[in-house]
């Protein structure tokens, strides 16, 4: 029962997203916006598995999305648009990149891990900009969204909404189960005290690498969806700024649980959208809100209820 209570915020949020199209948020552009938020949330959840679960703060997670997105591009250029082919390729491409770079990166930790993942992300970025055949820096416009069993299911906004929601829920569930398993406990033990874990006979390396590859694979799936959502892919998707944004979503939401990443990503995207309507220099407001959030919400947005409860008890 207690376990269920901990999952309540995430389940509630997913439930809200499920009914949103029929609760006055079914307009085309709102669906577009929610799809964007859910896809970024999916990447943020996988990043949260690394940050919250394993203490691996990656500054190159956008590259995972990039590999997924560019898999869509390269197959699209070869006129291969069947989702049942493209999606596995996208996932494998990202997982493969994660495996190769992770093999080096997870040997380090702390700020060195941040920097080495940044370095690999930058390498992926510069590689993408030099892909002249796929638009280089200008990016690549897809001929159409991927097809599902020959049908144009993803073109339908409502259907795409539920595809994204399903993918997000699946990613969340997978990460949730991983963290609750023995694997997750070892990860957390390694994060809390690497020396002790090692003394107990756990070499942290394979556990961290596995987590990194799984997070990469989910990122690749998110990249697949992102390419289909925007029907366009550019190296900008891999820039370090995008990696930073994903990280900010995770931190803003709170790293204590996976639902923090969900809340953070949705909050980040919606706040950006809302603020930009208010003032030409809205980024100032956005920056100030980020600073205030850090100063006054030590556990992120997801920590607000506990904080309020504590305040009430004290008051």
């Amino acid at each position, binding site marked *: 029962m207690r376990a269920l209570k901990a999952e309540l915020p995430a389940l509630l949020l997913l439930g809200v997203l499920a009914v949103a199209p029929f609760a006055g948020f079914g307009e085309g552009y709102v669906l577009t916006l929610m799809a964007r938020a859910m896809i970024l949330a999916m990447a943020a959840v996988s990043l949260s598995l690394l940050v919250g679960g394993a203490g691996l703060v990656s500054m190159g997670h956008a590259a995972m999305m990039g590999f997924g997105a560019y898999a869509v591009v390269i197959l699209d250029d070869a006129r291969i648009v069947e989702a049942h082919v493209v999606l596995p390729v996208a996932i494998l491409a990202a997982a493969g990149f994660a495996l190769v770079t992770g093999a080096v990166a997870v040997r380090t930790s702390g700020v060195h891990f941040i920097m080495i993942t940044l370095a690999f992300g930058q390498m992926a970025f510069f590689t993408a900009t030099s892909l002249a055949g796929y638009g280089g820096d200008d*990016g690549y416009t897809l001929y159409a969204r991927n097809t599902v069993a020959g049908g144009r299911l993803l073109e339908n906004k409502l259907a795409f909404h539920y595809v994204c929601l399903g993918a997000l829920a699946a990613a969340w569930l997978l990460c949730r189960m991983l963290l609750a398993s023995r694997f997750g406990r070892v990860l957390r033990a390694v994060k809390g005290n690497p020396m002790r874990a090692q003394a107990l006979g756990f070499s942290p390396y394979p556990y961290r690498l596995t987590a990194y590859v799984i997070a990469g694979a989910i990122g690749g799936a998110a990249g697949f969806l992102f390419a289909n959502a*925007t029907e366009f892919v550019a190296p900008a998707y891999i820039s370090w700024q995008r990696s930073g944004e994903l990280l900010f979503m995770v931190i803003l939401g709170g790293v204590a649980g996976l639902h923090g990443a969900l809340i953070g990503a949705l909050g980040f995207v919606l706040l950006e959208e809302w603020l930009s309507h208010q003032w*030409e220099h809205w980024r100032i407001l956005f920056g100030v809100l980020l600073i205030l959030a850090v100063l006054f919400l030590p556990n992120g947005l997801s920590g607000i209820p506990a904080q309020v409860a504590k305040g009430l008890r004290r008051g």
Partner: protein
Amino acid sequence: MTMRIELGRRAALGLGASALAMPLVARAQAAPVKVGLVAVLTGPQASLGTHLRDGFMLGMRHLENRLGGRGAEVLVIDDELRPDAAVTKVRAAIERDRCDVIVGVVFSNILAAIMRPVTEAQTFLISTNAGPSPFAGRGCNPFFFATSYVNDQNHAVMGQAAQDAGYRRVMIMTPNYQAGRDAAAGFKSRYRGEVVDEIYTPLTQLDFSAELARIAAARPDALFTFMPGGLGVNLVRQYRQAGLGNIPFLSAFTVDEAVLPAQGDAAVGFFTGTTWTPTLPNEQNARFVRDFEGQFNYVPASYAAHAYDSAFLLDSAIRRTGGNMADKGALRAAIKAADFRSVRGNFAFGANHFPVQDFWLAKVAKRADGKFQTEHERKVFDNVTDPFAAECRMPAG
């Protein structure tokens, strides 16, 4: 993520507000025409987007905020130079805000990103700056027009100018991205002499001293370069400081009014290939430049001029259809007629919806009032159609 600027009602948002305030007598006659104006307004390249926005807004002011007899609203959209953000915002402008037409766009990658979402919604997209060659050739589209040029054309102008000037050995330097490589190709399409070397620099490069040393070592007759925005500011000043000023500096989008204030004296005497300069002698242009400087207190660049033209183009087209924007075929024909007076003088649309126009060799000069501008030297191409038009098989809308 759009900034709503409804002319007249909520014009207090940053844009020479009071001047835009207009009485609203006309609004009752018909629902206003809604224009989505896409420009980059944040980040290092924001000054180009500011030119574009201000140029269009001045056009609207001169048209008394009416397009073809109907009232008009302009929704300014900041694309942030992020393709995915641009797609989201432009979709919102079409689906939520019911924009009738999307205008603007400084950078090609943003245009490429929003091309499908806009044209597939059967909404007209009028680029006032970005003009990637695929959209002029095989990728031409019945819902897409450009009031600017094909990107390669300004570079071809410089290639022709270098050829005409009799330079035998030219060095080329551009950033290492698609537009940079296109620039080199455009230059070489007209230049027949020897290209000593081609240097491609990272797009984020700040310091050109390594490249300047290579140029000095090669001692070419001239340099051709394409360095938009802040890149150009750095290059031009460092080029002067390195004492290379005696090697003719041929460029496109590198020394223009958007960056001249920061380049200052260092840019004087440098050449650029362009469709327009503030000095082109026609009545429409004189009024545009005078009022632009009066209202915004800086010298307009071609980004502003093309956007200004686009406002008049829209006005003429909507007038021609009698205010009807629902009949897409009629509206297309009306836009294609281009029945307005351009600040560039000659202006017509070719079969691929790109302009047939003149191109100029221009030179940077310091004006008597201490401000800098480009001044036209001579016409390089007369009423020219872009080389990609032949590849365009315009589909029926």
